[in-house]
């Protein structure tokens, strides 16, 4: 089946209209008044991405105008939280610009809470400000829609290369999920802002609740797979994140912990984190004394406690709700950003005023904007970046003309919503500069590649149509696999071999090598995915992207012979951090033609 191709010519193509993508659209339009700027969005930009619900806090804001923090302070914090391994130039760059983004959000109509005593934004913690954020995404999307031509329900499946320079991007290809047409974007520059990845590892809830992952179930790893397949250099793909959250509903703990100051204890009311400090020191040395304690080490303490059978771990919400204002704040936290947690409280008769709630560590996620920094190796800002972190345009990957923002860009943790939007702005401006500088040398599509992909993208529909007739009914067929069946296989492999929750996040070289064998067979089986309709075709390509990303995770985890982040995962064969040998970034490059990966170490420079 070969549906017709719909061509879209543009100067800047933005893949994904989430926080990074909306920032890129706004900024690219500001600097490129006469340019054609297009957003290809898999869902509907008004409610797409990780912020579809809304949020109750902006987690990255310096408050430089009130002298609250300097960008340097933020770099020190992020470096400490990530056990030393971050791109300080990128983190600094986010920090120095992020306040202007947040001030713009407020001007646009986002209600930011104020501290009645100072008139400053109400702080949740040192870096976070509280918002009434149910409409955060629709507000930000409004700015993007006024800046760019948005194509909703277009899923990008591959990036396209230039005919003469395979290391230059020429556009992207995908399909329209309603029309069933093929979309080919011919673009002078591309910004990948397609968001992070859930469902790489098996989620704790596997039945109807499989959708209640902490990161959104539609975060399907396109941010990574599109780049990997285009040959971009990736870093820190082993740096998956595990989150300590309210159990099952995955309600975030930030407001409860930082603002309302609810303590967490084991089942016997003990402060296990303090009790386990010496043990953590023995494991990671001076990193244990970083304050605040790194996110992974706090997870580690909790995991040890649960292994010892001293759970459930409780967050004592009942200790801190002493007024109607605080009760409203606690509820709004979830009603704004994780309604499922409120549903769970109502269902289990948990009134946070009266009784504590259980905490639990989640399945691992792959992302680049939270307390973790998987993603592309990107060129840094020319006035901050060390020379080996700088090869042209800010936030350009190692592929010419291909930029990234948000979860896409590696080495730069703690961006969150505001930082991802800010990074989109940085990339948007840089992409406009790239387009201007190369005005007379536009990229040329490689028609052979377009033809080949045009065929491949719709193949799952044919596979299903042909092979479905072989069976009477049901979901078991010998010659095709449904996307869900393939996903469940991937999740089982990742969970049991690559450090999922079922083995308490433990892995090792033999386990990882076995995972690679199984993933190789899964990759072969992906050629036999069957899609019943366009929705399942989306699921099929989401699975392709997840499998590709999962392979990168396995290979990086195998390459890094240490346990850098206990609490995120453990290499049982190398159980501690190993400085200075592994005080480096792990980098990989995939070659699509030969299906081979090259891994190397890249230096971590501390200069701020």
């Amino acid at each position: 089946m070969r549906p017709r191709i719909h061509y879209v010519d543009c100067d800047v193509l933005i893949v994904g209209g989430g926080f990074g993508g909306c920032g890129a659209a706004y900024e690219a339009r500001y600097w490129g008044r006469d340019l054609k700027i297009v957003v290809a969005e898999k869902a509907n930009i008004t409610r797409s991405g990780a912020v579809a619900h809304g949020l109750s806090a902006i987690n990255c804001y310096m408050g430089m105008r009130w002298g609250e923090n300097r960008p340097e302070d933020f770099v020190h914090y992020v470096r400490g939280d990530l056990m030393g391994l971050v791109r300080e130039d990128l983190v600094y760059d986010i920090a120095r610009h992020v306040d202007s983004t947040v001030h713009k959000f407020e001007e646009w109509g986002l209600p930011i809470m104020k501290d009645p005593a100072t008139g400053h934004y109400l702080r949740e913690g040192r870096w976070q400000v509280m918002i009434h954020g149910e409409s955060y995404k629709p507000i930000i999307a409004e700015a993007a829609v006024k800046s760019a031509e948005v194509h909703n329900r277009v899923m990008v499946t591959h990036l396209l290369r230039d005919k003469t320079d395979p290391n230059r991007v020429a556009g992207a290809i995908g399909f329209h999920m309603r029309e069933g047409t093929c979309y080919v974007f011919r673009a002078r520059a591309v910004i990948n802002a397609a968001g992070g990845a859930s469902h790489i590892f098996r989620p704790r809830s596997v039945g109807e609740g499989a959708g209640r992952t902490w990161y959104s179930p539609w975060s399907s790893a396109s941010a990574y797979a599109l780049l990997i397949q285009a040959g971009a250099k990736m870093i820190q793909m082993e740096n998956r994140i595990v989150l300590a959250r309210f159990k099952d509903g995955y309600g975030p703990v930030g407001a409860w912990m930082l603002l309302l100051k609810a303590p967490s204890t084991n089942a016997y009311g003990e402060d296990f984190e303090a009790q386990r400090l010496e043990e953590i020191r023995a494991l990671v040395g001076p990193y244990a004394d970083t304050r605040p304690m790194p996110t992974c080490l706090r997870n580690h303490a909790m995991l040890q406690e649960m292994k010892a059978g001293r759970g459930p771990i409780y967050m004592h919400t009942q200790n801190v709700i002493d007024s109607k204002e605080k009760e409203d704040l606690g509820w709004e936290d979830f009603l704004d950003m994780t309604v499922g947690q409120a549903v769970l409280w109502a269902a289990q008769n948990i009134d946070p005023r009266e009784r504590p709630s259980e905490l639990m560590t989640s399945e691992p996620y792959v992302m680049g904007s939270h307390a973790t920094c998987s993603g592309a190796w990107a060129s840094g800002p020319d006035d901050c970046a060390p020379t080996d972190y700088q090869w042209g345009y800010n936030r350009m990957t190692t592929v010419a003309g291909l930029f990234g923002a948000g979860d896409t860009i590696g080495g730069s943790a703690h961006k969150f919503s505001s930082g991802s939007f800010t990074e989109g702005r940085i990339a948007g401006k840089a992409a406009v500069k790239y387009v201007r500088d190369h005005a007379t040398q536009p990229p040329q599509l490689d028609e052979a590649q377009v033809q080949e992909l045009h065929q491949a993208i719709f193949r799952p529909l044919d596979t299903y149509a042909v092979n479905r007739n072989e069976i009477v009914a049901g979901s078991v067929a010998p010659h095709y696999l449904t996307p869900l069946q393939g996903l469940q296989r991937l999740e089982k492999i990742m969970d049991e071999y690559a450090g999922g929750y079922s083995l308490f996040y433990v892995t090792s070289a033999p386990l990882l090598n076995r995972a690679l064998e199984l993933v190789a067979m899964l990759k072969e089986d992906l050629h036999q995915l069957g899609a019943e309709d366009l929705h399942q075709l989306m699921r099929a390509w989401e699975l392709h992207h997840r499998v590709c990303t999962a392979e990168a995770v396995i290979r990086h985890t195998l390459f890094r012979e240490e346990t850098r982040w206990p609490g995120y995962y453990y290499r049982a064969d190398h159980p501690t951090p190993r400085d200075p040998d592994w005080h480096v970034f792990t980098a990989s490059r995939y070659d699509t033609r030969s299906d081979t990966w090259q891994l190397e170490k890249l230096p971590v420079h501390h200069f701020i």
Partner: protein
Amino acid sequence: MPTYTYMTRCDGCGQCVDICPADIMHIDPVYRRSYNIEPNFCWECYSCVKACPQHAIDVRGYADFAPLGHSVRVLREEEHGSIAWKVRYRDGRLKEFRFPIRTTPWDSITPPTAYAAPDRAALDSPLLAHEPEALYLAALPVPQGRV
């Protein structure tokens, strides 16, 4: 079932289909009304619930861990800039909340093209749109040390 649609309230308008980030609200070809085709990919994000003009969609917490007998209903009123929630517990307890959602009228954001066009030279500076003014600082910070 995460979300489900009440047969008698839905008129098949398709707004939930249009908004669902998971693409799982579809119109049933026989009944011409919406339903959730993949409850196990529903995030309970409530985007469809908020968007439905008929209030025809409700949520029943994930069967994996949510006992029956609860409800969390919502009324989002863009024109009033607010959202109201009604939380009913399994044991009958009721909690109600109302929060603001926006401080400015919808569609009031000034597009970037309404600002004076920057000159070509500014494209080479590290400043982003509206900076440094929007930072409320005299100048964009630059780092001291550099390798």
